[in-house]
């Protein structure tokens, strides 16, 4: 764990993961970017209204017997709503992402894979796309941008950054995602799981439930 001083308010911002390059100061909500030793403030980010997720920073869970804690989140907006991507930090030092949308939960991990930008751009729903020896089918393609970020992240979660998110499904609840932004194309792979399977703890309270 490392601590960095917030350039805006001076509070110590603690980072759990040494992979994190982005953090939001929990005192003044300033977004901070860590470039080697420099810390730059990107300004404040406000929590959107009507943001109701059962997960929150500090929520703990288990995947394949390994314990993790949610240490960051990006809320992404597309034409028909929102979804959340939670940055999950495992005790073992690994990091993954838990996507949460309309009561569906998936976990995925970044995988090393490359393909031509043109091929990825030309993918359409229903199309077969095999990578790393698994046949995936394109489920949907969503243009999106970051609406909000909190906690710490392995990339700069600047609000308004556009990207295209391609969700792929396969047999036995397998899940993959290709995140294509101006900067780079990143491949993720994982599984859909049900809410109880994560054995979540320290969930957010929801009034009336």
């Amino acid at each position: 764990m490392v601590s960095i001083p917030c350039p805006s308010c001076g509070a110590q911002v603690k980072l759990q993961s040494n992979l994190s390059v982005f953090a939001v100061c929990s005192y003044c909500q300033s977004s901070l970017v860590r470039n080697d030793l420099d810390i730059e403030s990107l300004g404040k980010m406000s929590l959107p209204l009507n943001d109701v997720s059962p997960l929150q920073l500090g929520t703990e869970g288990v995947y394949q017997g390994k314990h993790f804690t949610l240490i960051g989140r990006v809320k992404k907006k597309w034409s028909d709503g929102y979804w959340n991507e939670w940055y999950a930090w495992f005790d073992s030092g690994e990091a993954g992402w838990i996507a949460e949308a309309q009561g569906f939960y998936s976990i995925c991990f970044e995988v090393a894979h490359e393909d031509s930008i043109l091929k990825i751009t030309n993918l359409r729903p229903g199309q077969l796309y095999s990578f790393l020896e698994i046949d995936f089918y394109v489920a949907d393609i969503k243009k999106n941008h970051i609406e909000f970020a909190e906690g710490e992240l392995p990339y700069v979660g600047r609000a308004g950054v556009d990207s295209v998110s391609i969700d792929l499904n396969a047999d036995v609840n397998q899940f993959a995602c290709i995140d294509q932004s101006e900067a780079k194309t990143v491949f993720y792979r994982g599984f859909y799981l049900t809410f109880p399977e994560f054995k979540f703890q320290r969930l957010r309270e929801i009034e009336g439930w």
Partner: protein
Amino acid sequence: MAAGKLLSNFQCPNCGSAVSLRATGISLSVSCKNCRSIIGVENENYKILSQFEASKTVTPLIPIGTRGEIESILFEVIGFLERTDHLGYHPWREYLLFNPYHGFRWLVEAKGHWSYVTMIKKTVFQKNSSGEIDYQGRSYSLFDEGSAKVRYVWGEFYWRIKRNQELVTKDYVSPPYMLSLEQENSEIVWSQAIYQKAEFIQKTFNIQQVMPYSIGIAPHQPCFWGTVWDEVKWVSLCFLIVLTLIHCFLNSLNTQSLSHTQSATYIALPKGAVPSKGAFGIQPIREKDVLNSEIETPTFELKNNFTGLEVGLWADISNAWVASTFELVNCDTDETIPLESEVANYNGYDSDGYWSEGSNRVSNTISSVPKGRYFLRADIDADPALKKFDYQIMIKDGIIPLFNLILALFLVLCIPIFAYWRKWSFEVERWSESDYSPFSTGED
């Protein structure tokens, strides 16, 4: 972090009446109870998406806001849809269930039959060799292909309700499950339904009204007799094998202590030639003018208690019949057991050549004879055309009658046979609603 708040209220941008949201921040559209407008609620800039001009008001059986627990998850009804096929002949009703932690489920009611539905995050199903699709170890058969459109809306939804939105649908069944596909352009959504009993739904959601009367058999309704059949078929087969083995075992265990054959010649005398009593040193003739029509075996002992006694009759005849009335007499108690036997043997030539029917020999078994000393008396009656023939009576003990086995087998098999018959009629009725019935001849 502060507790999340899901309830909120706003004013309908069309009519100004209060509209409440139960999944604020999650729902994308809601209907105004007053003016039937569909309002987009993805942000605070509420916009009218469309107007439903329903000719009649459909009141959901389960009111919006009702909570109930299914599979130990508490759900709240937040939306209601009435949908139909594209002709509008077959409406069905869908209730959207919501839990902020577990997400969304559906409760579907069609013709009084209920289903609990979960969306599946899977886009492609592989067909197996018989054209069925496999999912989680079950094979699903195509039941129906059609289309669906929304006819009536109430409450809120996590997508934008569109007017006149028509979807292509496909249903595959493996009772009590059904896999359904809904397709709009390139977007495919699969869901899995589980059949639910109406009483369970009524209890879970505390429904006071009379539940809709269920009509016919639902595509994925489980068949009670099918379950019985599945459970008894192997057990019955085991019984069948065991019973046959017991029969063979008992047969081998019973020692055959007796095997006796007795021969005689039957002679019909010309009318009036009644011999004087005892003239031939044999038994006298009674009313009929016949010699040797009645014979008796020597006394014999049956050593096996309640064994079967096989009584055989053989007669050297052709194109005639011979009948015998037997009496098995217990020497100690004078109790008698009667038995009737008949042999008939006919043969000849016709345009097809030689033919024959019947036999010269017949065997019958007297079952469960107590052990003791017995003799057998036979009274022979014959075709009047017969003047003279040889015949034999045979007795054999230690027989386990096949009849016992057949009766036992019948008793064992009547449950599976009945279950199979009921299952079969149930399946025929179920599939009579489908264009893909495995029972249809393919002509219609």
